[in-house]
């Protein structure tokens, strides 16, 4: 494996992981009664 492929695979993996986690957190927020959206930007970014 060349460093080129490693860098790209890591970046794509991290990005996909981040989006997956975000979707998971949004679902969790919904269960807690938060509709998400503008006022909840901090929740969307996982902070």
């Amino acid at each position: 494996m060349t460093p080129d492929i490693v860098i790209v695979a890591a970046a794509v993996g991290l990005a996909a992981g981040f989006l997956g986690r975000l979707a998971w957190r949004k679902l969790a927020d919904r269960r807690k009664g938060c509709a998400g959206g503008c006022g909840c930007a901090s929740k969307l970014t996982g902070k």
Partner: protein
Amino acid sequence: MSAAPLPRIAVVGNPNTGKSTLFNALTGLRQRVGNYPGVTVARKSGTCDLGGGRLVELIDLPGLYSLAAVSPDERVVIDVLLGRIPGEAPPDLVLVVCDATNLLRNCFLAAQIAELGLPAVLAVNQADVARERGIEIDIPLLAGRLGTAVALVSAWKGEGIADVRRTLLRGLDQRPVLRRSEWPEAIAAALAEVAAAARDATGRDIPPALAQRFLFDSAPTLAESAGWAAPAREPALRAARDRVRRAGLNPPAAEPLIHYARLRRDLEGVVRGTGRESRSAAVDRILLHRVLGPVCFAVFMLGLFWSVFALAKGPMEWILAGVDGLKALAAPSLEGMPMAQSLVTDGILGGVGAFLVFLPQIAFLFLLVGLLEDSGYMARAAFIMDRLFGWCGLNGKSFVPLLSGFACAIPGILSTRTIEDPKARLATAFAVPFMSCSARFPVYALMCAAFIGPQHGALWESVAMVGMHLVGLLFAVPIAFILTRVVLRVRPAPFVLELPRYQLPKVKDVLWRVWQSVWEFIQKAGTIIFALTIVVWALSYFPRDEALAERARAVAVAKGADPAAADAAAAAAQVENSWMGRMGKSIQPVFDPAGFDWKLTVGVLASFPAREVIVSTLGITYALGEETGADSESLYAAMREARWTEGPRAGTAIFTLPTVLALMVFFALCSQCGSTIVTLARETGGWKWAGISFATMTTLAWLAAVAVYQVGTALMS
């Protein structure tokens, strides 16, 4: 051991009394201060030092004119004051904020609060405006007549805040209760009957103030929330109201008649000077004029967008230059790693850069809207638009949610809670996503920057922007008309809108709000957009087929293309062969009647979770199709030069004026926001209306885009 809870003070008052400004001044907390009614929709609290380290908790409650509240928002006030919020005792003190320029009407709420029996003090706010209008208020006399401590304050100017603190301290120490009105015998007896019947039915003691609400209010919401069901309630209330009628009084009118009669006596000699016509009233004669008002409104909106473009032009060029500088810096350091180089320059910097470039426009838009809002003009805009809403059957209270929808549909849908009628609430929530939210702005801005601006100039850019903001409204009005008049059959409801005086905007508050939106935009670019650009890049980059690229290069060379053009042809073949390209090409026939090629189709598909994603997606697909390592300016050039490669339009430009307008109209109408759909489902209690909204908006968007493209193309040919 936990510390003892702080004494709690509830701040109540009519809308537009400067209640939130006073709350800010007392607590020092940042809070949105608006001039149109309904801005305080959530309960807010903060800690206040009354002096000598004596801390209290202040609770800012939504503004209301009377305790005869029916909207969910107003019910919160009664629940807090009566201690009916689970886990919360009634407040230790109530601070009633009154407007010095309209003391009689404001004291009506104070008279109702007196009936609660809670300790209460008064803050008479907007003293500066009263002074300007020649109104004098004898504060010691008022305090004596009402039987409590009163402070005169101008929260906006910061005058008298220390006096309010002293008044609150005195209120906590002496616990004064406002003097009550005296009820005629028949009403007192009817109230006793109501309290007894409700106690028998619910098994709980009913406070006298609640019994008054049961007797006087026509809406049964409070009785129902107290657990007094209709079968037991209705005969008891009918009997009690009949008793009041027999005494010659009309039950719903009795309460204001008795309170106002007593308050007029109490305020005799307290308020001197009837007030001159304010400058605001003089200005309003023009801005609220039947004909001139809407004309001024249109001119303001056109000027607003024109200013946004003019002011943002320079900063946008700086960002473009910055992104290009970063690309030039990153490319050599990744020499020998073509994949990683493409990821960084075409993917991340191309995608995030294309999105971030609109930051100045967002900042100036929020700045100018914030200045208009703080100046008091937005309430006038509500007044002007109310005629239109009344015609289409929407409640007058729909204006605030619909106006919020222009920033973001989610707070707009949430603020429909202030509408009492559930059907009117549903119709408004359905109409809100049609309003052109700020996420649509980068999409319009991209089309304006790439096509309308360079070809037609800044004025037409502004006209296109205003037009796109009106498109949503144009569709929302007939849809609301059908929903309210035919499907839901909403009953018309009265709407009270108090116009605040004009004032110089508080620049600090406006700048704070601008910063909040700018920061949110940057966060979005650094998180969601950043991650999505990487995923979209990967989908547009893989799989690689070098043989296919070589064939495309050879064909281009055979046709006489120079080496750069041959490279571009090879890159374009790779993108077309990518997963994203294959998906776009297979779905493109659906969007073909609207003039969208496969790249635009990919952009549209990627934008369904969040519409602004199209900007970064187009940034990537066009950068990948250009072997030159497209900088941001050449993204616009690449889009301008894009040609159909096959079919009857082969060789002609993809982005004609009809295509650009069709794309903008599609984004103006389409339901492309996952969060909005979820919020709509939550607020309407199920997925039915969210599903109907999604289907209606998306179908309408497609039909409108096709109509714009087909009619536009026919007219231009």
